[in-house]
């Protein structure tokens, strides 16, 4: 084994890590906010908004993320409205296009995950909140969202891990994140195995950290479902 090559490859790839993390972080935050909006539209009771949300979710879950990304990156520039709008300086950036398409896509999945969480909230707990005079945003913030988030967390951590891996697609729209840099390295060295192995290890470590963090969060938020602490036993 050529450890010198492996370590120099690792160093090169790690230099692209901030870009991978930026793609991931931006798309998760943006996608999460968009998902909240979609869930609100989907469950709010207005037939037009709910229909729009349903169609959105169908389109973005039903078509390949790679094609969505190509459409955003290569497609948007064909429209004069966009090409000559104030948005163009941003939308011509590969990074912005990648984040946009990742966020748009994850929003569809996340909205459905959150909706499942909301459906799992017991109507009795909602009724109890109404009976003390809670309604609207207060009820959502204090009772509905905290319970729904707990129900949604396991599925949501899977979605987050999927997103971390999906950032690799950004290499195909010329964003120099870990996978993109790996491919460039291979085209120079022809050492596919070693380089992709190093890249895979980076993703594995990242996802290990994410899953540990999500597991910790889940543990912290599910105290009410665990066995009775010794101190409380009579």
């Amino acid at each position: 084994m050529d450890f010198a090559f492996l370590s120099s490859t690792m160093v090169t790839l790690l230099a692209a890590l901030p870009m991978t993390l930026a793609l991931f972080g931006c798309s998760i935050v943006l996608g999460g906010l968009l998902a909240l909006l979609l869930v609100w539209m989907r469950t709010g009771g207005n037939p037009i908004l709910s229909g729009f949300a349903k169609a959105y979710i169908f389109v973005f879950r039903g078509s390949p993320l790679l094609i969505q990304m190509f459409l955003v990156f290569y497609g948007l520039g064909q429209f004069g409205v966009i090409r000559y709008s104030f948005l163009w300086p941003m939308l011509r950036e590969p990074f912005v296009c990648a984040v946009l398409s990742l966020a748009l896509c994850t929003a569809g999945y996340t909205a459905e995950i959150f909706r499942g969480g909301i459906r799992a909230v017991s109507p009795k707990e909602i009724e109890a909140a109404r009976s003390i005079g809670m309604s609207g945003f207060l009820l959502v913030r204090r009772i509905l969202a905290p319970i729904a988030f707990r129900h949604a967390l396991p599925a949501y951590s899977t979605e987050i891990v999927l997103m971390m891996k999906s950032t690799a697609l950004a290499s195909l729209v010329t964003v120099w994140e870990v996978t993109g840099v790996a491919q460039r390295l291979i085209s120079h060295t022809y050492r596919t195995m070693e380089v992709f192995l190093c890249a895979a290890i980076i993703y594995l470590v990242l996802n290990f950290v994410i899953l540990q963090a999500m597991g910790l969060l889940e543990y912290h938020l599910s105290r009410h479902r665990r066995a009775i602490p010794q101190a409380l036993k009579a």
Partner: protein
Amino acid sequence: MARVNRLSVRNIRKSFGTHEVLRGISLDAEDGDVISLLGASGSGKSTFLRCINLLEIANDGEIWVDGEQIRMVHRNGRSKPESHRQVDHIRSELGMVFQSFNLWSHMTILQNVIEGPIHVLRRPRSEAIAEAEALLEKVGIADKRHAYPAHLSGGQQQRAAIARALAMKPKVMLFDEPTSALDPELVGEVLRVMRALAEEGTTMLVVTHEMSFARNVSNRVVFMRDGLIDSSGTPDEMFGGGGSPAFRQFIGHFGS
């Protein structure tokens, strides 16, 4: 000085589809009244209670809580509250205790009790905690304040739910079959708490199947049948042979 009724209900009607569950119910509760609502299942007593705090919206009728009328708008044969803000306010003045407790599962017992005072009544956290601890002491579960609902027995959960309702300092307490979901050996601890509240002068409206409570604790017994008040009176009148034939037949099932 004329006494203001804590609760006054006039001619409440409620239908689900074509089925008329409440066919014109009127009821007054003065300060300190403890009214037991009895009736077979399906007689409309729970629906009646839920109409009072607007968890169900009555099709017709008037409701006053502590002298304030709930404003309704009627349109196309349907009615709904005029102001959601008033609904929230009215609900905060009516303490509801549910058959299946309905505690918030992700909060500790103490958090359940302080939630309303802090976020609905906007009271300072330290005061809310002090009062909540006193209430939990009163219902006998102060040692469970940091436990979660799932860690408590049914009787303890129901006592916590009573403390949660009391923390709002309600004008009237509504109990919707508070002991029906409990194992028989746990019923007594909840009834003891309710009896203590009655003796303190809390105005209470209790839907129940506990004949001993109706007879010994309440000062008025209301018997509902087919969406109407069949008969009502003091416990002595009702249980002393003064009730309607239907009521005598009803209590016959309980072996009284």
